[in-house]
């Protein structure tokens, strides 16, 4: 099985599994996420996501503080531009563990079996079978992009009654295949989370 075929097979399974879980979720625990997405920090972009809390548990710590532990699924889409190189599009179905304390401080970590598509920024010419240069449109590559991430944030509704949270997050992404092997990419996110109340 080719790499790209394996990627599609894996993604299909993953989406099916998540869809099954979502069927049982209430609409009350959903959020919208919008963020600056900086691949290699300065390759600017945007990311949007729709977060659904799959499971949430409130508990007391040994010191008597209350914390909320939650597992969330956030299908998202990031787009960025690496100037004079490519525009990247990443489908990121994040699964995350989130912990929020009574002051509204958030810690988050998770994984995402992402799917990456690049669009080369420039005129692309392919050498065809006749040995001639043939112009291509929207040329790029598709790759698997598994991601792990860690982040912090703050729920501003706790102290200030502002119904949003801000968050910052570091993504470590592996693009497979890339050239003769794979490529590790880093990206930062700075964004806001807006709870959806139905």
């Amino acid at each position: 099985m080719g790499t790209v075929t394996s990627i599609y097979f894996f993604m299909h399974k993953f989406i099916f599994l998540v869809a099954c879980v979502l069927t049982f979720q209430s609409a009350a625990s959903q959020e919208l996420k919008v963020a600056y997405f900086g691949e290699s920090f300065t390759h600017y972009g945007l990311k949007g996501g729709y977060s659904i809390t799959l499971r949430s548990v409130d508990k007391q710590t040994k010191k008597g503080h209350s914390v909320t532990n939650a597992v969330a699924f956030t299908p998202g889409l990031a787009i960025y531009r690496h100037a004079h190189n490519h525009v990247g599009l990443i489908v990121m179905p994040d699964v995350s563990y989130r912990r929020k304390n009574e002051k509204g401080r958030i810690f988050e970590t998770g994984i995402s079996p992402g799917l990456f598509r690049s669009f080369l920024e420039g005129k692309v010419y392919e050498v065809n079978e006749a040995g001639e240069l043939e112009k291509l449109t929207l040329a790029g590559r598709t790759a698997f992009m598994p991601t792990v991430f860690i982040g912090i944030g703050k729920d501003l509704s706790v102290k200030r009654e502002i119904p949003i949270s801000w968050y910052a997050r570091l993504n470590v992404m592996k693009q497979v295949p890339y050239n003769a092997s794979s490529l590790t990419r880093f990206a930062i996110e700075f964004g806001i989370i807006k709870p959806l109340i139905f």
Partner: protein
Amino acid sequence: MQKLFFLFIIPLFFLSCTEDATEATDTFYVRNDGADMPVWVRGNVDSGKIILYVHGGPGDCAMCYRYYLKGMEKDVAVAYWDQRIAGSASGNVDPKTLNYEQYTEDAFYVVSLLRQQYPGKKIYLMGHSFGVEVTWQFLTTNDNQSMVAGALIVNGTFSNYRWMDVMRDWVIREATEQNNAKALDFAEENPVTKENIQELDWVGYYRHMLDLGGNELSLFSNKKFLINYALFTPNTTLAQFSHGKGYENYFDFEMLNYDTSGKLDMIDIPVAFLWGKKDGVVPIEIGYETEALLVNTTVDWTVFDDSWHEPFVSENEKFIEAALSFMRNN
């Protein structure tokens, strides 16, 4: 915490906008045998002259050296080509294609593309280090030399057997001067012959050469270059460190068989040598040997007395002027 957040995020937004400020003319990609290789053309195309920079390595990058070669762009255009799996080239590449035949084919299509896009313009190859090997291979294959107006050769070899033999001489000379018994013992225990070249511990020679000061200048000691390289150029920074394994077959077998000495007599286009005199990586004696083999053309020499392997870094202005002067005269 919030103050820290905004202090960090706002400068990043501004940084993200200050992308590589170029007088961009064109960006092309050549897709060949699994590789998507960028060719950035910058500078004065109206001059009628384009230098195609053939970078070293293998595995180095072209656009990252724009920092040092930009001085030429006012007078001529420079085409920066990242070879397969190097620099910011991407794709899905079989490591078996990392051989001279493939590099020559890639170079052929890059030159063909430049000729197609800029009809009537003169194209010059500027090979540096490994790029010199690709340049010689290209020029001595079929009638390729008729596609270009000249070649600028910067600290590179025509034969890897000769390279190793000359480097051994360099190591012995420097080790004697510096009283380095370890390096001398190594050279004595590891003679270089045509017959043993495949088994030769060339990495050992390379290490001793560096220890003896064969390339004192590090690109990465220039912090401005480093920041520009990492954050504001089209390079895919971390890709530089991801492709090492791909070259295993090249370094173990392919490289050591390289030899164009029997073909250099077919070259009749103008050639310039720009050589860092203190270089231990590819010592200047290789340049003299190459010149002797170029019997059907003349060589325009510029020696950089205070330079090692990258004269365009250490004596930038002199380098730019020498390159432009060659192109003005040819």
